[in-house]
């Protein structure tokens, strides 16, 4: 195996060239910019970067910024709820679609449609679906609530306040600070499902069918086959997908931009949206502060990634 024990120059070269030419420079520059008050309308030159040196100003400012704090916790809320949902649902769908039935290709394509459809169309549609007054979700919830209410009345029991609320009003979704984030989570888990599902599907294709045959000979049932064969063999893909979902979750943006614009009252203002506001949304832009937020995001993600990287040896097959 000696041939595989040296640095594979040839294999790495194209990526390395791309990295050095188009990634390393902007990344280092953005780090530098985060320590300056550089104004984006001034030429990005050594002179201007040095002349506008701000030390830790932008980072200190983050500590006192209540909106940033809110955005941070909103992001955390989103990640903690949305990422597990994404992974579990996408895996379930992938398992279901990893079989042959007539039209399976079409069904798989259906799941990818939201990724193809413009985010504006998806966002606007969800805004209507979640409209508290006329949206189908609340129409259904009110109908459900009124049935439950009727049941209580039929049994001559006092109607609980929540049931009455459901029957007459229901959640305010995007217009209510408490319900806006759940609304965003539902929409974005739904819209991102196809992407995660497809990665799982590709991983499932790689599993050698002889393993299942062996398991069947041992008399394993479906659940045991999933738990003892599929999941371990799929673990590299699960690792990949979880890591990507985390990174993506911390950078959720598109649907928030279209559906709520960070509102109401900053309830859906997340780190990337806030950064976008600072870099491009407000005028004049504040690239120094935006870059500092970007690097805060980076530190969080890098920390999480390193932890997962270390832990992977415990559960990801073939990595050990």
């Amino acid at each position, binding site marked *: 195996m000696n041939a*595989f*024990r*040296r*640095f594979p120059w*040839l*294999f790495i070269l*194209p*990526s390395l*060239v*791309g*990295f050095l*030419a188009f*990634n390393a*420079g902007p*990344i280092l*520059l*953005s780090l530098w*910019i985060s320590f300056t008050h550089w104004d984006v309308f001034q030429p990005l030159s050594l002179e201007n970067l040095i002349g506008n040196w701000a030390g830790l100003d932008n980072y200190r400012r983050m500590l006192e910024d209540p909106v940033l704090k809110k955005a941070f916790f909103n992001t955390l809320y989103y990640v903690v709820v949305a990422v597990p949902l994404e992974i579990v649902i996408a895996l379930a769908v992938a398992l279901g679609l990893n*079989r042959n039935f007539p039209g399976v*290709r079409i*069904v798989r*394509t*259906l*799941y990818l*449609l939201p*990724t*193809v*459809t*413009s985010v*504006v*169309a*998806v966002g606007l*549609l969800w805004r209507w679906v979640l409209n508290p007054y006329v949206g189908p979700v609340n129409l259904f919830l009110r109908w459900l609530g009124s049935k439950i209410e009727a049941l209580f009345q039929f049994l001559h029991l006092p109607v609980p306040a929540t049931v009455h609320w459901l029957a007459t009003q229901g959640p305010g979704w995007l217009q209510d600070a408490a319900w806006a984030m759940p609304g965003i989570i539902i929409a974005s888990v739904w819209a991102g*499902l196809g*992407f995660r599902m*497809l*990665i799982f599907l*590709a*991983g*499932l*294709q*790689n*599993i*050698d069918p002889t393993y*299942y045959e062996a398991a069947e000979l041992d008399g394993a049932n*479906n659940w045991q086959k999933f738990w003892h064969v599929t999941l371990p*063999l799929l673990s*590299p893909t699960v690792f*990949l997908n979880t890591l*990507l979902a985390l*990174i993506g979750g911390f950078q959720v943006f598109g649907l928030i931009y279209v559906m709520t614009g960070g509102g109401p009252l900053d309830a859906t203002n997340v780190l*990337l949206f806030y*950064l976008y506001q600072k870099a491009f949304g407000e005028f004049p832009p504040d690239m120094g502060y*935006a*870059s500092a937020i*970007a690097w805060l995001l*980076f530190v969080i993600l*890098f920390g999480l*990634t390193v932890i997962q990287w270390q832990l992977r040896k415990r559960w990801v097959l073939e*990595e050990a």
Partner: protein
Amino acid sequence: MKRKTTFWDVLVIGLLLLGGLSMLVPFFWMISTSLKEPGSLFDLPIQLWPKKLHWENYQQVLTIVPFGRWYLNSLIIATGLTFLNLTSGAMAGYAFARFRWRGRDVMFLLSLITLMIPAHVLIIPLFVIMSRLGWIDTYYALILPGLFDAFAIFLMRQHFIQMPKELEEAALIDGAGPWQIYWKIALPLAAPALATLGTFTFLAGWNSFLWPLVATNSIEMRPLTVGLAVFNTNFSTEWTLLMAGLSLATIPPILVFLLAQRWFIRGLTLGSLKG
């Protein structure tokens, strides 16, 4: 191997179909809007499907803006990015999966860093670099950044790791070098992963907006996403034209995905979950 279809199979397929159909709704809505009379956004009651189909929206979008040119640009950009990405990403992914060298893990984590810094703060520095190279408003600026993509490397690495090593080891014993093994054995076996990656890259390239917006000056160099933004101005959006353009824009990615699934078949016929 043939199995009876059980009640559970029907239930599962039914649920999957239901989920899939829900995915169709915004797509349907986009197309229905594209066929409505201009300005009918305000009509009450809301029409699910227009009574009279206004195909002229499509005719308009094809004639009043350089739609064909934008379409071609999008195709060139997305195809170029996909090609670069598959080539360089698969090679690097294979290196990280099979080779061992000092500092390999550090290098890999380093490449993941690029996924963790939001592109928004990188765009202006990248523009300045491209501008120095004189590549603004050319395909170079739009395609070459695809040379390095951590997502591609990561995806390919995980797939090579997951692949059984036996064939490669046998070839090694037969005296093949890493390069030969990669081309002749590993890469063909990675077809499902390549198909997945290709779909994603094409989609990402096709949908990309902010970078092409910043990196192009002339209207003729724009991809569709940026070009169609002309229908979306501060005080009014021409929904019908915008949606007509966007509907036409969904055709290539859907074709790509349907096509990419051909390479899934191998796994499907051999290893369906319940065998």
